[in-house]
């Protein structure tokens, strides 16, 4: 048997679903797993962030709302692609403690965070 326990449940202390709502659980214990899961989404994410940056640079901060809308739409598309692509190996991620909602949430949060930082930096530097 394994020497390291992934987690434990005692008979009288079985808690309701918690990991996806627990911020500590979102901390990456194996950071490359998020990248492994989301790598097929990476190109789309970088592309849309780059396009958003170019449009904001050329048209000014007035288009940020539209670009954010575009980003959100492509993020939803990206999630759908990820779910479809990982429909067979999702059990591997779940078995090692990465539920699908958590993987999608972290992927989306990092993507949106990078987008926000990029656009904010662009606006501060050039407008």
């Amino acid at each position, binding site marked *: 048997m394994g020497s390291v326990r992934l987690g434990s449940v005692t*008979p009288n202390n079985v808690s309701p679903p918690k990991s996806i709502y627990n911020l500590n659980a979102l901390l990456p214990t194996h950071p490359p797993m998020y990248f492994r899961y989301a790598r097929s989404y990476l190109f789309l994410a970088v592309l849309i962030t780059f396009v958003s940056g170019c449009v904001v640079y050329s048209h000014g901060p007035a288009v940020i709302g539209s670009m954010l809308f575009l980003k959100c739409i492509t993020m939803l598309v990206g999630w759908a692609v990820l779910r479809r692509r990982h429909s067979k190996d999702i059990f591997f991620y779940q078995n090692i403690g990465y539920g699908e909602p958590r993987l999608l949430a972290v992927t989306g949060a990092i993507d949106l965070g990078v987008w926000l930082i990029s656009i904010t930096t662009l606006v501060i530097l050039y407008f």
Partner: protein
Amino acid sequence: MDILLDSVYLSFGSNDVLRGAHFRMEKGKVTGMLGRNGTGKSCMLKILTGQLRPESLYIGVDGQYTKDLYAVPGLINYLPQHNCHPKDMRLGKLLVLYGVDEAAFMAEHGALFPTGDLRFGDLSGGTRRLFEVLLLLAADTDFTLLDEPFSHIMPIHIDYVRAVIQRSAKTKGVLVTDHQYQHVLDLADTLYLIYEGTSRIVGGREDLVRYGYIR
């Protein structure tokens, strides 16, 4: 410790697949599940792992309602019918991710997998299956759900897997479902047959004949 799945109602359009099915797994026991194709056996497993949401469902762990078994750390792991591990990942890495001690695993099963440096995709189909089954059984979860663990595995290794399942069932609950019913029959402490939308506990071969699962 036990997991209870109860009052499962599932339909696809006008087709009622499950009508009040129930199911109970206990730690320290092997639970078997059999059923003809299309009776809802795989649906039960998908429901257990949260992949399918039926119209009605109760899941309890030790009598306490639990919405998602995977959300309880260390409670279950699940092996689907198909290979579910990345082909480019080394066996040693997989063992680490599952919290299994590589040296101990290799000491026990070293004759089957000479080195942890091999990639999962380098193994033959049958050996991949064998590794997955042994990996999930070795992981320190309270329950392991195995969907067709004997598929693609050669007979001599089937005996090996059966022995490991029996050994593992001393410390965890194991659910086994497979069309090679004789193995399930031999292994199971409790055997369920999914029949006409419900689940029935069956005693042995005679019951399987009576319900038309075998002749």
